């Protein structure tokens, strides 16, 4: 019952953040289009996708949730039930996450940048778990008149902490965003990512390697400099 309550609380909070994140930019889009937007058909001008080039940069902010899917071990591990398995539960609540990402265009489509994030959850015994991903992110942006669709992958390290145990894992985070251009400077939308992280057995080489698998959805705001 307590578990269900915690799950409901976390999920509801995450959903509110997501819905809020999506609703705000939609309202802004409705308000701004036709004023200083990228153009509207009402102005009699065809919509044109803005062109970015080498050196143009963006700052993206994301706020969302991530679902812990499962953990994968290179060797079978004994569970509390006495079973031995490679695929194991993550035993974490829904993760609340946030990230700031700075990107530079290499040409009109390809970007490279850096990302600093954070994730927060509790385990099945209410112990706090948090993670700080530090990533290099490369991307390809499909630029449409009213939308941009960045497809990207982040690669780097994740510093994780559970109670007083701190560890580093390596992370790969591929994902795609769907962003509406609200103004020439701002785009808003959502980003979906798969978080894959590899925690080597730092303390004892005979321990198995572990791979964390999460799927993340976040409300995203992008500012174009």
């Amino acid at each position, binding site marked *: 019952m*307590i*578990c269900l309550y915690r799950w409901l609380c976390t999920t509801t909070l995450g959903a509110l953040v997501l819905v809020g994140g999506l609703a705000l930019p939609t309202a802004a889009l409705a308000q701004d289009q036709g004023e200083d937007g990228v153009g509207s058909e009402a102005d009699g001008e065809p919509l044109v996708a803005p062109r970015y080039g080498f050196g143009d940069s963006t700052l993206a902010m994301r706020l969302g949730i991530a679902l812990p899917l499962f*953990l994968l*071990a290179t060797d079978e*591990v*004994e*569970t*509390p039930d006495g079973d031995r398995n490679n695929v*194991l*539960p*993550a*035993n*974490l609540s829904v993760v609340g996450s946030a990230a700031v990402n700075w990107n530079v265009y290499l040409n009109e489509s390809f970007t490279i940048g850096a990302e600093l994030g954070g994730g927060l959850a509790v*385990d*099945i*015994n209410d112990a706090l*778990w948090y993670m700080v991903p*530090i990533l290099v992110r490369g991307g390809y942006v499909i630029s449409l008149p009213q939308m941009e669709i960045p497809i990207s992958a982040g690669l780097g*390290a994740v*510093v*994780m*902490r*559970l*109670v*007083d*145990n*701190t*560890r*580093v*894992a390596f992370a790969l985070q591929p994902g795609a965003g769907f962003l509406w251009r609200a103004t020439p400077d701002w785009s808003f939308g959502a980003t979906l990512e798969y978080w894959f992280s590899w*925690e*080597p*057995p*730092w*303390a*004892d080489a*005979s*321990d*198995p390697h*572990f*791979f*964390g698998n999460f799927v993340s959805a976040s409300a995203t705001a992008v500012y174009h400099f």
Partner: protein
Amino acid sequence: MWSRRLGLGRAGRHLLGVLALVLVVACEPDVLGIYHTLATESERDNRNLHDNLTVSATAEVAGYFYVAAHGMWSRPIGRDSWQEVRRPRSGSVEMPVLGMAQRNATLCVGTDNGVYHADADPKAPSWQRATGISGQILRVFAIPGRAGEILAIVHNDGLFVSRDGCQEFSRVELPVEATASGRPYDAFHDGSKYWLTVGKRVYFGGNLDDPLQREARAPEDSDYRGIWCLGTDNCYFANRAGEIYSLDSNNLELLGTIEPPDDDVEEVPLTLFIDIEDQMLIGTEGYGFYQFGVRDLDLSDVRRGPRSTSQLYRAHVTMFARHGDLVFAGTAGGGLSSIKVATAVKDTGTWDWE
């Protein structure tokens, strides 16, 4: 700055800083990884013991486990939920239980004023006060290797023994210089004689009613703590300086010293031993416990024991007890943890918080 001499820009220096952080946090001592810990974690029942208990003892009687930790709790073996056990009273107030031992179906508890005994009952034992002993009891324990005898250490009043299941206690006459050296800590019967640690000294004797002899070969540099004997004249002694001595009829040998895991401390104070299958565990004050093989008793293979439960990893371990296929580790302020014997001897053993 060295980084400038290397020609690194600001970004390069930040990157180096991140790499240094990665190396520092990735090279922590031999605790299990976080994903490993999460994957093998079991959910605690919220009706269980408080996390911050100072545990003095556990017992197993007639299908129930008992834990003494100022309060007293019991649970059926195989169940998760602990329930409170009524303690001895002083007037209308229940007294804190500071130690516990058992003999057959009798529980024997030390309080801040005397020792009490009762037939074990998971809810409301009918406590009777033991005679011949009073004052604040620091520890009550059955002498390993001598199950019929129960020792009680009394604050500022020495050592008492009961041979009738905790009904009557009599004083163990310690040499005057022993009591001046410090308080008794542990005792063991190796099959032919008793061994006791008292302050900075080790004593032995064939009978607790006769004067004990000082083991002159034992160095007197630090307070002695736990004793464990694997056979007659084959005993091991731990001290507050992190040293473990092996003492038999022929030799005294310093097996080794537990090295502090932190640079800012000089020694790892050791507490009590337990022997589980082929592994010896030794508790510490503040560093959980260490584990090494019993067969060769070679401290070169010593490793820090609890690898996933952080509450045990930095705990002051106050007691170990084995009950059937479970091992309990009690802590000062960190509650009680348990592990299955079969898992305890593996190096990936995961302790469950009780």
